[in-house]
């Protein structure tokens, strides 16, 4: 899949989550706004890379298999 996101959108998403978190009427709002900021906290670089490089290039799917070593 070709990358279609932008870095601005990543920032927007974070801000939207911040707008929801702690301000919604129901607890689902709070819960739904939790995963993305957490992912951004630990894997920001990967998200940024994903804006211009296809995921298949960043994370070679073959490299994540159990038989990757056998192929080398």
């Amino acid at each position: 899949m070709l990358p279609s996101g932008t870095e601005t959108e990543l920032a927007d998403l974070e801000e939207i989550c911040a707008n929801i978190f702690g301000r919604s009427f129901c607890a689902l709002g709070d819960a739904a706004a939790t995963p993305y900021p957490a992912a951004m906290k630990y894997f920001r670089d990967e998200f940024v890379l994903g804006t211009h490089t296809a995921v298949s290039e960043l994370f070679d799917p073959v490299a994540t298999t159990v038989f990757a070593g056998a192929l080398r």
Partner: protein
Amino acid sequence: MTVTTNTPILVGTVDVPEGFVTATIDGVVISVPKGTLIIRAAELLGVAVPRFCDHPLLAAVANCRMCLIEIEGMPKPQPSCATPLGEGMVVKTQLTSEIADAAQQGVMEFLLINHPLDCPICDKGGECPLQNQSMSNGRADTRFAGTKRTFPKPINISAQILLDRERCVSCARCTRFADEIAGEPLIALLERGSQQQVGTADDQPFDSYFSGNTIQICPVGALTSARYRFRSRPFDLVSAPTVCEHCASGCGLRTDTRRSTIMRRLAWDEPEVNEEWNCDKGRFAFPYISEGRLTHPLVRDDDGELRPASWPEALDVAARGLAAARGRAAVLTGGRLTREDAYAYAKFARVVLATDDIDFRARPHSSEEAAFLSALVAGTGRGVTYSDLEKAPTVLLVGFEPEEESPIIFLRLRKAVRRGAVSVHTVSPLLTDGSSRLSAQLIQTIPGAEAATLDALSEGDLGEAIRAPGAVILVGERLASSPGSLSAAANLAATTGAALAWVPRRAGERGALDSGALTGVLPGGRVLTDAAARIETAAVWGVDVASLPSLVGRSADDVVARINDDHHAIAVAGDEPPEHTIRALVVAGVSADDQGDPDAFLSAIDAVPFVVSLETRHTDVTERADVVFPVATVAEKAGSFTDWEGRIRDFNAVLHEVGIQNDGRVLAMIADEMDLDFGRGDVSALRKELDSLGRGNGVRPEVPNVAASATATVDSAHAVLATWRHLLDAGTLQEGEPYLAATARAAVVRISAAKAAALQVNDGDEVAVSTEHGSISLPAVITELPDDVVWLPTNSFGSTVRATLHADAGDVVAVSRGGEHA
């Protein structure tokens, strides 16, 4: 914005009274009564926290999230509309807290995602809380790049109320209003997520008497009226505070005009009277002001035709006709006149026409009622008030249906009932929908038997409840046609100590009574036959005491009967009319269908030799009159109404039309033409005279003591008629507003299950109610009624009881299967 109470503010460090809490808002120390919401406390400091769902008269729900503020020590921003200010709290609003400001901007961004950018064509544009607050508390640009959610629009949730679902921000003000205030949860929030929308049940439109209020409290343009949609922009309107002329509730209104045309009317904030609400009749029934008006005087020609005439000619004809009938003329005024104009007629009758034959009661009335009014109501000033109703432990309604006859009393009682503060009891043949929304206990009575019922009430549990301090008895004007009932109500009030208030249906009745537009009553509740009262009145009027009529005159019914009797005698004997007969009538604001017997009224108008009519529009009286003068409606003149409490409600002219005079000014011109001194007759002069007359403190007449009459006995083909008006009906002041009329309650015949079984009819079958004069056939609704009682609306489309049946509550009528069986 509404401030409902005059909450004391204490800023800075002073002794804080008990029950107050002290906290800091935006660095300012404030002490407010415990329980005050942060959003209100901030208002007291002049800090406006943005809000949509919050409304001071609705319970807090905190579901729009716009009013988030920061409270030190709390992890999340809190909704200030649902959080009471606590002792020692440190509150920061958007003015001092970045967290609060960011939270509000974020909520605003979400609210605007699906909101159409149609402000330039939206009715709310220019007076829209969403528009204003998106400017003050929102981002300048949009980041939303997707496609907005759309809905077909508008949809009719009633004939009058149109819903634009795209604009809705789901604040639920409208649904909460319908549920909490009106007690008719006909609208609700349906669906979830971005599909959430306001809707009605499929077969049940939002036909509430109070539906218009939802338009006014909608913070966006989602609710509009068919009457006003796309008619005007708020910034083109000129607004003026006015008072409603449709009933005796005394609502303050805001009337918006554009280029001398009334575009709409809104409820004005009057905490002591209508709070922020009004009924749909007051809101929408104003087209009568601009349509079909009389524009110039009319004079009957020698060939019997009414033709347009100049003012000088019409005044000359009127003056000569009335001068010839001086001392033998009568004045019939309706209950729709302002206090000032009613006073002008009261003075005109006594000073210019030298008669005491004046009566404002254009409806069924009795001499018992006249005695009751002059003894207990006229000139008594403010009695029971709206806030007394709220505080009363017990309210007894007698011959009075608040929702239909005085809707603001209904809302106020409902407010108290919801708080669990008051128990309502109603003496009536049936428990109506309105009464059941007041959780009222029915004291079931056959029409005409109210007196006996009231006599029995002073004992027992209810008697004890009415003896509780603050208890109130509200009697409706309809009791006039139930002999003995007003006496019994007065007696019940006297024996139990309960406060008694008379609630007329028309706006001008109390003012007319206080101004002396009733036979035997002089302005301020003075008694015509009291020497001191005569001296006081004559002094203000600048006339000789001896010239005031000394004998108590005749009621409207007696005037009509006298004319018809004399006319009949003349026709039979071919004689000259008797010397004492009535030779001229001055009729104002009365139409035949108001009367208990419309035919008798019209035949009297036909028979009397000279009739002067002062009217706003063509009526069955103007077409029979000899001289017709056009007069101003409430929109074109200043004046005041006295509401049922006795509170005087002043208003100024909204439309400034050239050449339209108030009634008093026309009367003054006629008096001038007769070379009699009447004064200027304009509103300020009349007011000045009323003020200097004030309230009489002389003798009061005896409270009537009329015995209850025996109730009618009926066979299976007959029933006793119970009847009262629907709020929205065929009334003349509601003409020209089809959307409003379409929300009116349908006319039905209500019969008991036993009667239905005897007639072999089911719910919905046609039932005919007949007298010798005519018959009304309508679908039946089986209701818990006494077996021998049948109920009809008095003046609805398809059920004009007075005009068709010539009957009134308590009369015996024939009941049969209707439709093809009739």
